[in-house]
């Protein structure tokens, strides 16, 4: 198990390094002249003077050879330093740290909503399936409606969903504030918006794996031994069926972070997402790189946690993980 853990850690470190390197290549090497790109954004639209550009070039170390730039940036990044934002002059790490709590709150609320919503929708969907041992009055339209719910969720762009929620809940019914990041009531609509695409995907995956699990022969064994619908659904099928959605949920945490970009823009909240949108709009290269690597860090940490969690749920994976493979 320790070897498995070490291997996973090594893998995670590699992924982070590669993410740093890829973003360095993309942001610092790909543009013909990153300095003028930054200067253009930084000068607020005005054409920067030659002196300004030269000063920036020195400040960001672009006058040095590429390998040297790369190494010094990598060393700095290892110490948690991604340079200073061109826009504000503030350190990128500071920027992220300041914006993080708001986004964390939003993402956590959204994840909770998505998980609970997906579970309810999936179980309800399964209950409407024409399974012979679930005898109840069939309501075909209800089953169809429930099954199309997730499809609708993945098809709606979240920026639009957010605007619709504002239109209905803030303008029309005046239940929740339309914008801003104060208090619990301000959190409801953004969290709902952010949860929708995630929850829809989760519901699809969970429904599918529940249906697959219910078709497995071991369900027949349990039925033949006299198990009722409750035992079948919760004791036999759900645990088997929850492994795939859990893995997906892990991947989706990264997407929540990305989703915060639009949601925080729509609801005018402060946070990582808003900071990202601003950084991209002003082509603030150090800030964008810092945020991209931060996204990779979150994703890597979550998958690491999942790698440790999934074997607890599935003894078959535990066997391969615990072995020396």
């Amino acid at each position, binding site marked *: 198990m320790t070897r498995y853990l070490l291997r996973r850690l090594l893998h995670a470190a590699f*992924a982070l390094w*590669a*993410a740093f390197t*890829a*973003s360095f290549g993309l*942001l610092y090497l*790909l*543009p013909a002249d990153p300095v003028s790109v930054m200067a253009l954004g930084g000068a607020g639209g005005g054409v920067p003077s030659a002196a300004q550009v030269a000063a920036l070039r020195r400040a960001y170390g672009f006058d040095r050879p590429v390998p040297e730039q790369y190494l010094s940036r990598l060393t700095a990044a290892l110490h948690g330093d991604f340079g200073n934002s061109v826009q504000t002059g503030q350190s990128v790490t500071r920027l992220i740290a300041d914006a993080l709590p708001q986004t964390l709150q939003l993402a956590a609320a959204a994840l909770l909503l998505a998980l609970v919503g997906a579970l309810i929708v999936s179980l309800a969907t399964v209950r409407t*399936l*024409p*399974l012979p041992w679930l005898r109840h009055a069939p309501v075909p339209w209800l089953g169809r409606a429930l*099954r*199309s719910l997730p*499809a*609708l969720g*993945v*098809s*709606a*762009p*979240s*920026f*639009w969903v957010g*605007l*619709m929620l*504002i*239109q209905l809940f803030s*303008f029309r019914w005046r239940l929740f504030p339309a914008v801003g990041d104060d208090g619990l009531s301000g959190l409801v609509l953004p969290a709902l918006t952010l949860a929708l695409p995630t929850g829809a995907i989760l519901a*699809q*995956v969970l429904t*599918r794996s529940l*249906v*697959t699990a*219910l*078709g*497995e*022969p071991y369900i*027949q064994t349990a039925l033949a031994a006299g198990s009722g619908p409750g035992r079948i659904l919760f004791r036999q099928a759900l645990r088997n069926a929850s492994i795939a959605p859990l*893995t*997906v949920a892990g*991947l989706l945490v*990264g*997407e929540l*972070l*990305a989703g915060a*970009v*639009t949601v925080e823009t*729509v609801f005018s909240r402060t946070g990582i997402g808003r900071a*990202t*949108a601003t950084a*991209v*709009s002003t*082509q603030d*290269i150090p800030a*964008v790189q810092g*945020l*991209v690597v931060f*996204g*990779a860090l979150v*994703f*890597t940490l979550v998958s690491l946690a999942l790698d440790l969690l999934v074997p607890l749920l599935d003894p078959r994976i535990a066997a391969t993980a615990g072995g020396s493979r």
Partner: protein
Amino acid sequence: MSAVDTADIASAARTRKRYAPGLVLSAAVLVLILTAAIAPGLFTRQDPLAADPIHRLEPPSRAHLFGTDELGRDLYCRVLHGAALSLSTAGIALAIGLLCGTLLGLIAGTARGRVDDLLMRATDVLLAIPSLLVSLAVVTALGFGATKTAVAVGVTGIASFARITRAEVLRVSVAPYVEAAHVVGVRRPTVLMRHVLPNAWAPVLGFAAVSFGASLLAVSTLGFLGYGTPPPTPEWGSLVASGRSYFAEAWWLSTLPGLTIVATVLAANRIARALHGEDGRLPR
């Protein structure tokens, strides 16, 4: 036999009639929108850029089906004219992901060994960064504009397509009928072309069909955030964004272009699902 029986249970969720009304409706919607993208003049005579300050911010009416915007431009007309740009950007993005991804996946799946390892580690990294962040990084590096957003969205698809293609190639490569072809003396390249590719192709295409909706959503999101084509050229995402400022008094400005996106993605996904046989699988 009970092997068949259990398959019956598994398919219970997928039972559907041959011509499901939803599928027919989806096809109709998609045909309509594609026609609008190719020849918007068929549906409207108006100019999407013609301002009419007298009729600004008018709600939907017979004269203006989707209402008018803050400059009095006909929103219905702007949505129709935006279809070409939105759909083609999404299409280009999909094509980039599909072409680069399948090529990499093919190389990885057939070369195996070190090349395979290297390519798969590379896709790991691409998958480790949330796709929108990858798109945003590309946009930062390349700058704003329709083609650039297409590249930005396309890049995020490469890893998934590479993985699916590789997995399919590997799956088919160990199929007994491929071994049988080797045994009867068919040369390696011929086996690849005649047996492996045709059988590996279908799931990849199925995934491509499923990805179109996601691609359109991603392109619209970048447009909404303002990284796409600059105004006044109409594009669906930016239409929603520009309606935001007048949202309190003119609900239709953001609602109707957004609804068009939802309808298109829903229709595309529905048809993709029918082609694919089931819901599109998430990669990995």
